[in-house]
Structures are given as structure tokens and as C-alpha cells.
């Protein structure tokens, strides 16, 4: 018997995690009649992991709605997924998710979540993605209210540090709370504890020393402990441990939890140089939303994992503002000094770039004809000379959004064991199993779709298993 009353009884379903996937699972299990305990490792304010930082989800819909500008078909969703993953996806699961996403907006709204048209600055997603009114934390608040009203028991600051699993059957979890360990029993387990992006040691296993310079965009609580334990207990792994969603974010951002406001959308407007003041990739390859997520890896491959986005006064107001002001100077040389770069080297890079820019008609809304010639790497679009002071720079580092290594599941969100057998009573949802659908790459809003669809399925399946 445990001293904490809510840990004393045996539940039908134990949900580990407190984000979108966990809450969708908890609510659907409860609605299916199960008694449910949610164990959230974070304190109440930080509940909901990376879901707190989200703003939208991508779902199939047949027609425009009050907050979506047009239809988004299953085929189109599938094509988009195929495109971003380069085919590294489990087609059966992916198609199931896409099919089931059609009901998701309605179901999520029934749980009290409200939507709005796409946010200012994100018009490119207005047709495919439904935005949460008030953002991810508002969404979570609604889910928590609904879960509480339904009688789901929620325990905060309750980190799961051990799982008792034998032969693919979950028996109990060891929970750490207020310095005390408790054993919690349940008939079924839903693991929805996110990825391991906040676990720097684990990231270092795959990335080596450079991982020390990574910034973690979201919660410090997603340390992958539950994922590790599941894999160690014989659950089959899925996804490449070196794959993660990484973008270039402001290097001045805090180590953890800087969220969306440290992102920078100005790469296409200028040039990006490394510590040696050299360019290293085509900044104008394609529209920013399509290239957003390659820059984390590109910067990670540079010395000291740092780079600088340079632009001039012409571009100052063309992109979404971000948290920190750019470093400013009257000349590129002075800018280099402020940034701690070699002024002569930066001046040379800028001069070479300027000399290579061909005349064209600048238009950042199309793939315009402003490009460089005879420069390596080239800038294929939106290339304009850096010639109008003041000059500006943002220092950037790799910002890790989430990791892809996860637990293999089947269409019931049931984990599969390494020996190929289905787990007896263990289910997974959200980032912890996202690798089934996302072998690599990412399309905005899929993280929430994976969490909601598989969370809902996991909850239903766990409840019906527990009650039989």
C-alpha cells in the first residue's frame, strides 16, 4: 500500500506522460469506462511537455471550415508525408493515422479545445493545419479540465523511474514523488512520455561532443527514461536514433524550453556564414517552410556548431520578429568584430557574394530570379547584395525539437516486442512512437496528429483490454 492515496488502488489504465498523446489516451480510456491514472513527471505549470509549445495540427478535412481555408484529402496528406519522409514511413500505420485524422478535429473540439484560423505569419499552413486558439497550452488546459471532469486521476511531479514488465506484460510502475518511491499497479499501460531530446547524454551517444552545443527547444522533462526502459524490457525499437527534428534557432536562447519565439525566419533573406565567416549552404534553395528543418543539421555540422545569419536594412522587416534583437553594425567588418569573427574574412565573403549576385526582380513570395552565378555554394533565389547599412546578424545554433527513436506499435497502438509478438497490455502514443510514421523529415502539425490519433486509439484499446 502506498502512502499517497491516488497511488494506492489498482487502475484499469496507467498513462505515463502529460502531453497531448497522454491526455487523449486518458480521456478516451475514461470515456470507454476505464479508471485512469495519469502520471506526469513535470510540475503542474510545466505539464504537457512539448505540447505546451505547439500551435497547430494537421488533419484530413473534406471542405473549408471557419478556420481552414480549403479541403485537405487523404491522398494529399499521404503525398506530403511520403515527400517529407522520403518514403521512410510504415505505410499501413501512416495511412491509418491519416484516415483516422479525419475525425480528430471534431473529437478534439468535443474535449473543449478551440481552434482559430492560421496565425499571422503562417499563412502557408492555413489550409492544411488547424490552429489552437491560445496555442498549445490553451489546448492542454482544455484537455486537463475535461479529463478532471471525467474523473481521470492526475498526479504531477510523479516521474516514472521503473517499469515492471515480464514477457511483454506490464505489471506495475515505480514512481518517484517528493523524494519517495511508490509502486503503482494497473491492468494496462499507455506510454506517452515523449522522446529523449532533453537527455543530452543520450544525444551525445549518437552525436558526440557537438551535442553539448545543442539547444533544446522544448521541455527539460522529456529525458526518454520511459522509452529507454521499454526498449530495455524487450520492446522493439523503431526509427533512427540520430534522427531528430532540428532547426537553427537564436544562439542566445536558453538551454531548454525557449519555445517558438527563438526561431528565425530570415535565412532566405541573407547569407549564412560559419565561425570562419564562410558560407556553407544555398540559403535560397526553396521556400523557407520547406527548408526550415534542414538548418539545424547544417549548423550542427559546422565547427563549434555555430553560424550567423547576415542581412541588411532592406530585409529588416520582411520576416516574423523574434525574441532577441539582431546584432547591428554600420559595415560588415564592424559586424564581424561584434560577432567575434575575422573582419577581413567576412568582408571577403560578403564581397564575393555581392559580386556574384545577378540582377533580378526580388519577390519573396515566389521562387524569384534573384540568384548568384559562379559562387559556391550558390544562392538560388532571393539573392540580393548586402549593401544597405545597417548590417545585421543573428547567431544561431541547432535547436532540437524532438527525436524519432521510438517503440514499434501496431494499428491498435499496441507495442510490439522485439521477438515480433504483440505486447500483452502495453500501448504507446505520441512522440514515443512517432518514428513508426516519421522515419525522418517532418511536416508541420504531424506531431500533434500522431499524438491525438494514436492517443485516442491507445486509450480505447487499453480500456477494452482492461475491462475484459
Amino acid at each position: 500500500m502506498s502512502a499517497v492515496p491516488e497511488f494506492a488502488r489498482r487502475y484499469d489504465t496507467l498513462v505515463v506522460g502529460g502531453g497531448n498523446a497522454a491526455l487523449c489516451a486518458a480521456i478516451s480510456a475514461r470515456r470507454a469506462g476505464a479508471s485512469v491514472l495519469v502520471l506526469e513527471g513535470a510540475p503542474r505549470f510545466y505539464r504537457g511537455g512539448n505540447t505546451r509549445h505547439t500551435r497547430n495540427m494537421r488533419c484530413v478535412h473534406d471542405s473549408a471550415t471557419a478556420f481552414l481555408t480549403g479541403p485537405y484529402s487523404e491522398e494529399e496528406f499521404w503525398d506530403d508525408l511520403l515527400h517529407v519522409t522520403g518514403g521512410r514511413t510504415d505505410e499501413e500505420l501512416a495511412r491509418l493515422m491519416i484516415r483516422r485524422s479525419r475525425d480528430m478535429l471534431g473529437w478534439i473540439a468535443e474535449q473543449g479545445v478551440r481552434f482559430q484560423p492560421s496565425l499571422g505569419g503562417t499563412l502557408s499552413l492555413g489550409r492544411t493545419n488547424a490552429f489552437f486558439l491560445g496555442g498549445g497550452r490553451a489546448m492542454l488546459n482544455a484537455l486537463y479540465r475535461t479529463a478532471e471532469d471525467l474523473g481521470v486521476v492526475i498526479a504531477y511531479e510523479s516521474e516514472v523511474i521503473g517499469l515492471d514488465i515480464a514477457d511483454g506484460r506490464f505489471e506495475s510502475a515505480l514512481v518517484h514523488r517528493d523524494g519517495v518511491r511508490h509502486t503503482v499497479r494497473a491492468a494496462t499501460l499507455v506510454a506517452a512520455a515523449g522522446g529523449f531530446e532533453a537527455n543530452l547524454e543520450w544525444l551525445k551517444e549518437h552525436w558526440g561532443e557537438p551535442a553539448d552545443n545543442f539547444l533544446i527547444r522544448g521541455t527539460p522533462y522529456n529525458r526518454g527514461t520511459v522509452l529507454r526502459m521499454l526498449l530495455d524490457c524487450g520492446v522493439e525499437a523503431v526509427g533512427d536514433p540520430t534522427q531528430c527534428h532540428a532547426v537553427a534557432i537564436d544562439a542566445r536562447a536558453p538551454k531548454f524550453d525557449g519555445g517558438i519565439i527563438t526561431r528565425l525566419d530570415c535565412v532566405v533573406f541573407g547569407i549564412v556564414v560559419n565561425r570562419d565567416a564562410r558560407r556553407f549552404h544555398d540559403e535560397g534553395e526553396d521556400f523557407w517552410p520547406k527548408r526550415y528543418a534542414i538548418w539545424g543539421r547544417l549548423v550542427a555540422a559546422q565547427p563549434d556548431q555555430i553560424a550567423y545569419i547576415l542581412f541588411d536594412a532592406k530585409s529588416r522587416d520582411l520576416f516574423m520578429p523574434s525574441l532577441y534583437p539582431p546584432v547591428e553594425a554600420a559595415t560588415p567588418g564592424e559586424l564581424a568584430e561584434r560577432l567575434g569573427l575575422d573582419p577581413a574574412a567576412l568582408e571577403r565573403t560578403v564581397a564575393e557574394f555581392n559580386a556574384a549576385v545577378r540582377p533580378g526582380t526580388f519577390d519573396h513570395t515566389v521562387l524569384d530570379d534573384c540568384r548568384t552565378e559562379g559562387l559556391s555554394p550558390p544562392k538560388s533565389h532571393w539573392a540580393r547584395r548586402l549593401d544597405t547599412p545597417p548590417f545585421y546578424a543573428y547567431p544561431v545554433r541547432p535547436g532540437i525539437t524532438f527525436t524519432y527513436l521510438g517503440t514499434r506499435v501496431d494499428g491498435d497502438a499496441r507495442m510490439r516486442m522485439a521477438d515480433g509478438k504483440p505486447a500483452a497490455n502495453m500501448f504507446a502514443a505520441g512522440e514515443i512512437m512517432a518514428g513508426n510514421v516519421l522515419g525522418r523529415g517532418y511536416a508541420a502539425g504531424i506531431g500533434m496528429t500522431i499524438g491525438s490519433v494514436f492517443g485516442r486509439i491507445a486509450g480505447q484499446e487499453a480500456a477494452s483490454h482492461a475491462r475484459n
Partner: protein
Amino acid sequence: MHATDALNEADRLMTVCNSCRYCEGLCAVFPAMELRRTFTAGDLNYLANLCHSCGACFDDCQFAPPHAFAVNVPQTLASVRAESYRAYAWPRALAGAFDRNGLVIAVVAALSVAAFILGFAALNDPAVLLGAHSGPGAFYRLMPHNAMAALFGAAFLYAIVAMAMGLRAFLRDAGTPGRAAPTGVSLWQAVRDAGRLRYLDGGGVGCVNADERPTDRRRLFHHLTFYGFLLCFAATSVATLYHYLLGRVAPYPWYDVPVLLGSAGGLGLMVGTAGLLAAKWRRRPELRDDARFGMDAAFLAMLFLTAATGMALLVLRATPAMGVLLALHLGVVFALFITMPYGKFVHGLYRFAALVRYAGELGRI
């Protein structure tokens, strides 16, 4: 750098929010913010007065304290808003009235009530002051109608002039001049938005106050207060018309229009202000602007007292208590009038002006 800490903090927050924009759909503040990339003091005063303090963006913010970014928009904008009342006060010499506003209002009210009681006692025979009067003109036996009209007319006029000057300063400062001159359309939009307190609804579910569960109670109480106030104003207006156009002299029978309007309005005011005061009392500390509690409470108390003394006068007007009650009521109303430009009353004015500007900006840019 701005002149005050609150403005600096608001500037910092608007930079954070402008990079985030997740709250864009909750109210008017965020879309107005998005039209700007830098913020002058006037911009911040404008945004602060657009905020209805519904609290939604606090509970919805992933960067709220204890997060290191410590984003608390409702509380910061409340401080800026209160400071803006002081900044735009006219004449400048009286701006200090906002500093310890609760005390100032209480003192003015007490003095004003005392003046009426003493004045009545000095000018009237004790038998008149403490006697029972009835029939038309009963009130005016204590204070001649013309004296009453002149005194209150002057006080009201002063309040209007002082507030108009404040409004002028606010409009000059808030937002780029000429960019959004009010049009009939933006005025009408603002009337509708203010009339239903569109932005006190937390983006649709209601505002948060004592806990994290949204309710619509503050909106309801504010409606009762505001429309109660309007009804009382209407009652006075009808009575004035009766007096001058029809030659009908107060007090009026209970079924007559001024009394019906006044009673409904008075009840609304009493229930509404009591509800708002209770809500203020129970408000979560993170959402409160404690430094301004006195100002808010004083204004609510004045409205409540205006209504309560008016209602008492209505009920007891045929008894010997009438003389003292009348002095009490007139004292409170007089104090309400002359302190209007130096108290929470101006929030309605600046907020309305901000809504007009907002309707203009969003329609035109």
C-alpha cells in the same frame, strides 16, 4: 527605454508576444500588436487600454512565470493602463490624484457629503431638514432646484472638459495620428464591441479570475454595472426633461418613468458593483495589480454608494430621514462627478477610444 518600469516591461512582453502570436485569436491586443514591430509609449498605452484583463493569455502562455521569460501580459498591461490614466490626466497638476487614488476619492467623498449635510443644516431650519415632506417639490424645499441644477451642471461640465482633455492627449499619443481617424464604421464597431464587452470573454469561454476555470461572471457584473449606470443616467435625463419641458417637479410617483428607470439602474449598479468588488477580492494574485486596488475599489464603492443612497432616498423619501439622505446622496453624486476624471471612471473612455482606433486600424491597414 521608456519612462517607467511598467512600460519597459510591456515593451519586453510585446516583443516576446510578437514573436509568438499564439494568443492572436483571444482578443484585440494581439492583432493590434502585430501591426507594429517597435512600441512607443503611446502604442503601449493604446494596447494596455485595449486589454480587458480577461486573464486568458496568462493561463494560455507557455512562458508565464515560473518560466524564465516570465510573461504576464494581463498584470503588466494593467499597470501600464493605470499609469496611462495618470499620464493623460488634465490638468497635469491633479495627476497626483491617481497616486493614492482610493484615499483621495474617499476624502473627497467624505468632504462632499459633509458639505451637503452642513450646508443643508446651515441653510435650513432643523424642522425642515428633519421633517417629513411629500408631494412635488419636496426635495427642493431643502435645496432650491436652480441651485441644485447649477451646482451639478457645473460639476458635470468640469468632469466632461477634464476628461475630454485627457482623451485628446491619449489619442495624440496612442498610435500613429491620421492612420486610423475614426470613421462612422469604426465608431459603430467599437460601440458594439464595448457594448457587449467582446474582449472580456477569454476568446469565447469566459474570463478567468479566482481560479483557472473560465466563467462569464465578471462580464455579467460589468454589464449590470454599466447598463445600470446608463439607466440611472437616463432616469436623470428624463427627469430633467419632465422638469423643464413638462413642468413636472420631482419626486415622481413610483410608477413613473424616472423612478422605474432609476430603480432598475440602481439595483443593477448595486448588484453589479458588489459582484465586481467581490471578484476583485477573490482574483488570483498573479492576475492582480495590487498597487491599483484602491483605485478600482474606490470607483466601485462610489458607484455602489450612489446607487444605494439613491435607492434609500426612493424608499424613505416620505419620512423624516429624507433630508439627511438627500444630502448624503447629493454629496456622493457630487463627489462622483468631480472625481470622474481622476479615477477608474476614465477606463471606459480610454478603452472605448482604443476600440475605435482598433476598428479603424484593422479595417484599414
